[in-house]
């Protein structure tokens, strides 16, 4: 069977192992995806005759906690990669588990937030504000779920690769991390735009 090329060795054209180049291209496309929705949000908001202040109907303290949770999960993610770099697999497991659990905390808080909105009769169809709020946070939430599935895989069965190819596995965690940090980065913009302004 032919091996997949450039999983650890850098490609001569890019100077990178292929997956890293790949994830950056993917992130570039994600920038455009979120960017398109963000422009739509600006256009709708500027064009609206009235627009509620986020802080008056959304839960700022909960969203602030979620910001802290996501930033914390970014540091545990980068620490899981650094642990592998230092050949400390057990530490990797701890940090990766923490990253996954912080993802769970983020989603649970989001669930309570959504639930409270539905309870008050606020749905995507209520008005333009809630349509953009649910679309942007919903898409972001799906990204969190996607990242958590990948992280869970690398925490469990996917971590077997550490025994056969340490460098390739470390690279995989770096890639998963790049995606996870990007999801954090998106939230850093969504939080002030939706909740604070």
């Amino acid at each position: 069977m032919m091996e997949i090329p450039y999983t650890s060795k850098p490609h001569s054209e890019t100077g990178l192992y292929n997956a890293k180049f790949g994830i950056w291209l993917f992130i570039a496309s994600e920038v455009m995806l979120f960017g398109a929705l963000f422009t739509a949000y600006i256009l709708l908001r500027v064009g609206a005759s009235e627009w509620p202040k986020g802080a008056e109907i959304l839960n700022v303290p909960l969203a602030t906690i979620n910001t802290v949770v996501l930033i914390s999960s970014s540091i545990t993610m980068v620490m899981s990669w650094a642990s592998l770099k230092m050949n400390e697999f057990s530490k990797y497991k701890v940090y990766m588990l923490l990253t996954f659990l912080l993802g769970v905390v983020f989603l649970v808080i989001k669930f309570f937030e959504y639930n409270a909105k539905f309870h008050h009769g606020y749905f995507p169809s209520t008005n333009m504000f809630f349509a953009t709020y649910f679309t942007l946070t919903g898409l972001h939430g799906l990204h969190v779920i996607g990242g958590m599935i990948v992280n869970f895989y690398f925490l469990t069965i996917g971590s077997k690769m550490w025994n056969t190819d340490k460098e390739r596995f470390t690279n995989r965690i770096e890639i998963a991390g790049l995606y996870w940090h990007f999801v954090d980065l998106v939230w850093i913009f969504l939080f002030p735009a939706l909740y604070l302004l």
Partner: protein
Amino acid sequence: MSVNNVKSHIKVYISIFVALMVLTVLTVFVSYLELSIGYAVTIAMIVAVIKGSLVANYFMHLISEKKVIYWVLILTLVFFVILMLLPILSTLDQVSR
């Protein structure tokens, strides 16, 4: 990357983490000041851009990345700016009529 190298990186990660927390508190605090919308948007976006670049540069290691990634991101940035200009241009267009 050597083990010592990684250890010095970890110190950087922790200071970035602290900076991100401080900036989060700052941006929430500013939102309670009841500034006019222009100032509020400007400050919130400046803080978000600083936080975003800290994440991208240090957690995502952009500060020491290969050239090809910079080119990909510069290209992305160009299209992103065009995308952001669309609502502004369309608003100006409506105002001028």
